[in-house]
């Protein structure tokens, strides 16, 4: 079996599962946030069950519309705080957490070998730690609150083997964009995507999270990386729980194996309005930008901010461009303060906002007017994603977004003048 199959077999009490089996899996952890949690609570209240199955296995994180930008959002937050208190569920409030997919691993809720579901499509991020993690909807979250179980079809697995060494100013984001460009926006629908190979082994957990995070942008059920000593190093001090690390068998079955080499990878950009519409940054210098956004569950981690700061240091954001930097969590924020990164951003003329999803989903902070263009480190460039349906979003790495903020047009960071 491969790692995904092993985790699902264990979670459903079976010795073996194969792709296509439908299993009733025991859920280890479930997460909901402020835009999916309220519907889940409403649905849970309709089940007739008075207490959740296990309050210690549920996590609520306020991250989308925070701090509350409207009375409606404030009401939703209040409702979730009430539910958390009543059921004695851990809730990460404004200023105590950050973006759910960053907070979950940071606070030790993500462990290798476990089944984690979340009412957010980017829940697949946690596969970076060797967990099976997938997104579900609010009603299904309510059913898990009540029963602790979820039916899952064991997916076929696509193995992606990555070789080579990243060149200067290319990053895991460029890799996942080029993978999606080849696989297409629905090329892995219902499937597991297992990232392997020397370049993934050399990659820190932050980069692995970027890969797994965007697996859903090719339709995948989950993205996953076998856990190793880097996983253990990250988890050290974050959890007191024991966990089981699974690896894929040598003779494990894959639907197909795709090979990539990052040695020849160029800074890449997903052009509007599909994540698989990939072009090299160097070919897009005619695209003038109004906004540059560095943040999100895809690229708001300390490694991402360091990369952006390296480029923005002693440089200035182009007049007429607004640059937004949003650290993914309070932990990332504090680390960025310690390292002097926030000062670099402020000196460059960028605004640093509190940890939240920000403009990524067009709900709050930094929305776009008709005709405007944003180059962003986030994960989706659908029509209307970041505000007006007449605005456009280009997705790129933190280095490319920082370089573009300086020049005012989409820029390969290697083309910046010293």
């Amino acid at each position, binding site marked *: 079996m491969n790692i995904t199959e092993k985790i699902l077999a264990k979670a459903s009490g079976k010795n073996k599962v194969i792709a296509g089996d439908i299993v009733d899996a025991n859920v280890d952890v479930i997460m909901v946030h402020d835009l999916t949690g309220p519907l889940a609570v409403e649905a849970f209240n309709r089940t*007739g069950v008075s207490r959740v199955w296990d309050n210690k296995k549920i996590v609520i994180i306020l991250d989308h519309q925070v701090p509350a930008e409207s009375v*409606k959002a404030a009401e939703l937050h209040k409702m979730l705080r009430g539910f958390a208190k009543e059921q004695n569920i851990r809730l990460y409030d404004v200023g105590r957490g950050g973006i759910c997919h960053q907070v979950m691993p940071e606070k030790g809720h993500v462990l290798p070998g476990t089944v984690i579901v979340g009412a957010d499509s980017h829940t697949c991020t946690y596969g970076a730690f060797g967990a099976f993690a997938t997104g579900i*909807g609010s*009603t299904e979250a309510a059913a898990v609150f*009540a029963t602790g179980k979820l039916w899952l079809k064991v997916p076929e697995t696509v193995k992606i083997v990555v070789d080579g060494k990243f060149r200067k100013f290319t990053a895991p984001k460029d890799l996942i964009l080029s993978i999606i460009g080849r696989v297409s926006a629905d090329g892995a*629908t219902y499937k597991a995507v297992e990232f392997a190979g020397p370049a993934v082994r050399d990659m820190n957990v932050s980069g692995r999270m970027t890969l797994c995070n965007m697996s859903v942008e090719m339709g995948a059920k989950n993205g996953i990386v076998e856990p190793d000593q880097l996983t253990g190093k990250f988890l050290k001090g974050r959890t007191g729980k024991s966990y089981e690390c699974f690896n894929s068998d040598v003779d494990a079955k894959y639907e197909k194996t795709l090979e990539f080499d990052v040695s020849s990878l160029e800074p890449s950009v997903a052009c509007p309005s599909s994540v698989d519409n990939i072009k090299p940054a160097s070919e897009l210098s005619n695209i003038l930008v109004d906004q540059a956004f560095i943040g999100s569950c895809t690229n708001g981690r300390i490694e991402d901010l360091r990369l952006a700061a390296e480029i923005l240091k002693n440089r200035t954001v182009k007049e007429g461009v607004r640059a937004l930097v949003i650290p993914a969590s309070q932990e990332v924020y504090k680390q960025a303060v310690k390292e002097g990164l926030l000062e670099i951003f402020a000196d460059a003329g960028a605004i640093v906002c509190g940890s939240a999803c920000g403009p990524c989903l067009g709900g709050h902070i930094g929305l776009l007017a008709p005709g405007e263009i944003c180059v962003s480190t986030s994960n989706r460039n659908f029509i209307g994603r970041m505000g007006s349906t007449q605005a456009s979003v280009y997705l790129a790495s933190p280095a490319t977004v920082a370089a573009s903020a300086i020049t005012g047009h989409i820029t390969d960071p290697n083309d910046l003048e010293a």
Partner: protein
Amino acid sequence: MKVSGSAIKLGSNIDTDVILPGKYLVLISPNDLAKHAMEGLDPSFAKKAAKGIVLVAGRNFGCGSSREQAPLALKYAGVKCIVAESFARIFFRNAINIGLPVIECRDISATVDSGDEVVIDFDSGEIQNKSSGKTISGVKLPSFIQEILADGGLIENLQRRLKKK
């Protein structure tokens, strides 16, 4: 279970941001959500769907976010059923869980045009275009999913199962 209605046909990769833009996610009432259904693609969609329609789409319908508000908005706007060449997996589960019937059919875009009268038989998986007289086969849903739909959604299904115990 059979569902019938006049078709509205869309293309491929219709994502949840055009089905229900992010700025409306603070709305809770399904009827409020319904007013904005498919607003990112066609602001007059809710009006067109109000009489009760069958939505026909290409590949990867509902890709993107896990927002259940997307199928909720469609259901309450008047979408009685969605037939697509393929669905994004979270949308597919969400639709079933809120009691909105969905079925996959690879040949649907080539067989049905906007305005055609369509009948979907969920027991057999057959889709009949009454306007053209053609009948094609979709992917029949497993019986436990058909039960969820027959109950009206996952919560109703769960209530029934919990009572049995």
